[in-house]
């Protein structure tokens, strides 16, 4: 136990150490996170009027981001499946990076829900009267926190074993939890979809295809983000990521994105060919309604980005890391718009009484989101900062703390450098 506490304190210390690029990157993230905090404090004092939301469009950017990131966090299982189900042990370290990533993303998700609450001071009411299993939101709370703990546990255990130079006891302490993680990840996606699908008041959501669509696009965007982070790790740290891993993830992205576009087409056909009265929201999203068309440019650029990215990914040049990253960025932006602007907001337009009020986020709201993104990246950078020297055997319990940097004079840039240019 004492050893573990010492480990934690060393972890914290090491996150403050790095060369100037690392320092600058962390400083930048901290400043952005504080700006977000400042914006949030304003919202706390003056209320949610500080956002663009209204009684008409009562969920906005916060919930959109939340939905997107839940999918991203869940998609980390793709890595886990490769390593543990297909027994590709060489990629073992990648699972740790993936799980740390999931932890950082879930922290972001929890922050996004919290900033969306009108009364965050009453958070404890969730513990006192929990409307389980009736309210889907309670499933979500359990799902996300459980997923957070699972990933935190598995990654900490593996890293700590490396720190203590012990062989992890996989059969007992890792594999069972990893298997749970796989099922859990898919369930949080499903619960996320049920959150929307279950509302008969909103025909746009009340549609069985939402769940598979969410799953498909998450399993495209999630691995795409992981490809990007792995490339950054490969480029800016001493850790080498095998190219094979990227290509494998590329396959996942291709399959998931193809499926996603296929589902989109079948949904659009059903809605528009039948042309029932229920498609006002869909029509608003794709073509505009009664002269209101705020989302139209967004959704079409999202579709264009997704299709374009998919075409690039199918081509052989996508084996080139730069091209691969480029396609991934397009795809992530595309899915972000589609899952955010495209899934959450149109359901509120028109309102159940047929009124059309559009939604534009305010600067303050955007600042809060940027703050949360920055905080998530800060957390992830710190995790990676700890994980790399431990996994490479430079930071272990039997060596003095400073020895983790003993190579610094000659290898500074590659060991402790900044991880800039994250997505």
């Amino acid at each position, binding site marked *: 136990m004492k050893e573990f506490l010492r480990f934690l304190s060393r972890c914290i210390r090491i996150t403050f*150490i790095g*060369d100037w690029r690392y320092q600058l990157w962390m400083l930048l993230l901290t400043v952005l996170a504080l700006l977000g905090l400042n914006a949030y404090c304003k919202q706390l004092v003056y209320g949610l*009027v500080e956002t663009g939301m*209204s*009684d008409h469009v009562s969920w906005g950017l916060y919930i959109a981001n939340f939905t997107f990131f839940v999918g991203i966090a869940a998609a980390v299982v793709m890595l886990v499946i490769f390593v543990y189900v297909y027994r590709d042990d060489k990629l073992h370290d990648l699972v740790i990076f993936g799980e740390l990533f999931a932890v950082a993303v879930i922290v972001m998700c929890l922050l996004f829900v919290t900033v969306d609450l009108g009364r965050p001071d*009453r958070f404890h009411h*969730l513990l006192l009267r929990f409307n389980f299993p009736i309210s889907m939101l309670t499933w979500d709370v359990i799902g996300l926190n459980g997923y957070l703990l699972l990933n935190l546990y598995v990654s900490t255990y593996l890293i700590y074993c490396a720190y203590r130079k012990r062989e992890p006891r996989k059969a007992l302490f890792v594999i069972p939890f990893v298997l749970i993680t796989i099922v859990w990840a898919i369930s949080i996606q499903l619960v996320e979809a049920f959150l929307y699908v279950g*509302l008969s*008041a909103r025909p746009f959501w009340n549609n069985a295809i939402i769940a598979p669509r969410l799953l498909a696009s998450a399993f495209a965007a999630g691995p795409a983000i992981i490809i990007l982070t792995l490339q950054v790790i490969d480029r800016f740290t001493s850790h080498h990521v095998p190219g094979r891993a990227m290509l494998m993830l590329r396959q996942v992205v291709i399959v998931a994105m193809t499926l996603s576009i296929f589902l989109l087409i079948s949904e659009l056909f059903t809605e528009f060919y039948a042309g029932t009265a229920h498609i006002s929201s869909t029509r608003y999203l794709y073509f505009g309604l009664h002269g209101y068309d705020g989302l139209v440019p967004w959704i079409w650029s999202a579709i264009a980005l997704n299709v374009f990215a998919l075409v690039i990914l199918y081509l052989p040049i996508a084996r080139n890391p730069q091209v691969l990253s480029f396609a991934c960025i397009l795809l992530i932006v595309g899915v972000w718009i589609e899952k955010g602007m495209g899934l959450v907001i149109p359901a509120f337009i028109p309102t159940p009484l047929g009124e059309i009020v559009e939604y534009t986020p305010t600067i303050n709201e955007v600042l809060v989101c940027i703050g949360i993104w920055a905080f998530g990246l800060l957390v992830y950078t710190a995790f990676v900062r700890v994980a790399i020297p431990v996994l490479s055997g430079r930071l272990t319990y039997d060596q003095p703390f*400073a020895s983790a940097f003993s190579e610094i004079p000659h290898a500074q840039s590659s060991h402790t450098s900044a991880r800039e240019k994250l997505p």
Partner: protein
Amino acid sequence: MTQHSADNTDAGPHHAKMTRRSFLRRGGVAVGGAAALVASLKPLMDPELDPGDLGSIQRFLQKHYKEMSTEDMDAALARIRNDVERRYGLRPDIRDIKPMDGVEFVFALNLSRCIGCRKCVHACVAENNQSRDPEIQYIRVLEMPKGTIDIERASHHYDRPKVPSEDHFYMPVQCHQCTRPPCVKVCPVEATWQEPDGITVIDYDWCIGCRYCEAACPYWARRFNFTPPRFASDEQIAQNPDIVKEQLNPDMSYLSNRPREKGVMEKCTFCLHRTREGKMPACLEVCPVGARKFGNVLNPDSDISRILRNKRVFVLKEEAGTLPRFFYYFDERRSRSGSDELDAPAAQSGEDA
């Protein structure tokens, strides 16, 4: 979050000996970080902030409505009484009014009568102490072209010198007090529930403001306090400093019209502080044409029961499966039921509530 940083490239074997320079630098960065943190928290020190807005221990410990003992409730009511008096300068008569046995409230609205004057909308705001700036309204009157009941064709913000318009009819919508309320199902903290008399209520001190219920309501009946409620605009207060006191309705109950706070949900409660004490809802009393009927559906002799039996009533969005307790009907020219006496404008619905 502070960025102590440093200069650790010199953290070699001589790490223990911190140089003066690196000490100053670390200190400087720590102070800078702390200052940045404090600066970003600055909005919290706003002088306009009411102490009540940030919560108190008492409020933090207050239980859920259904778990409160009589003493707990008395304490909560006393706190609210004092809060209201401190903030608005008026001592309210606030009670916790329980539902009556053998009563289930139902509303019916005669669309042939309604002239779209919106008197009910404003009477409701005055009765239920909604925020005036911005104004929160529970009732939305839809102006519909004759020949359709497709609400997507309704006009919400019609503004005519004279109502009604010849080519339109008017359809007021408010909370339908559904028998199977989706809003109740989705609430993660059970801050909203259906009472035995059919009224869906909200514990304003329990709601966490997630707005899931607002997304779930098919009748767009819920309203959220995006701002701290204000009972008069700045200009109005400048003209008449007592206006808040004059506008506030002191007849309050815990589950209905006591002043809300920012960040919580609210909605129509069929004026339960009136109707549970035998009065009619404010919107009904003010209606100049007697389009609104209200009463206890469990009493077979009540007007409302007779309307449900004899009129061709319908509900809005039946397909949503919510089984509303709010019915609409049109007058029939040649009623086969012979219950025309119900429609005499003077017969202001049931006395049986």
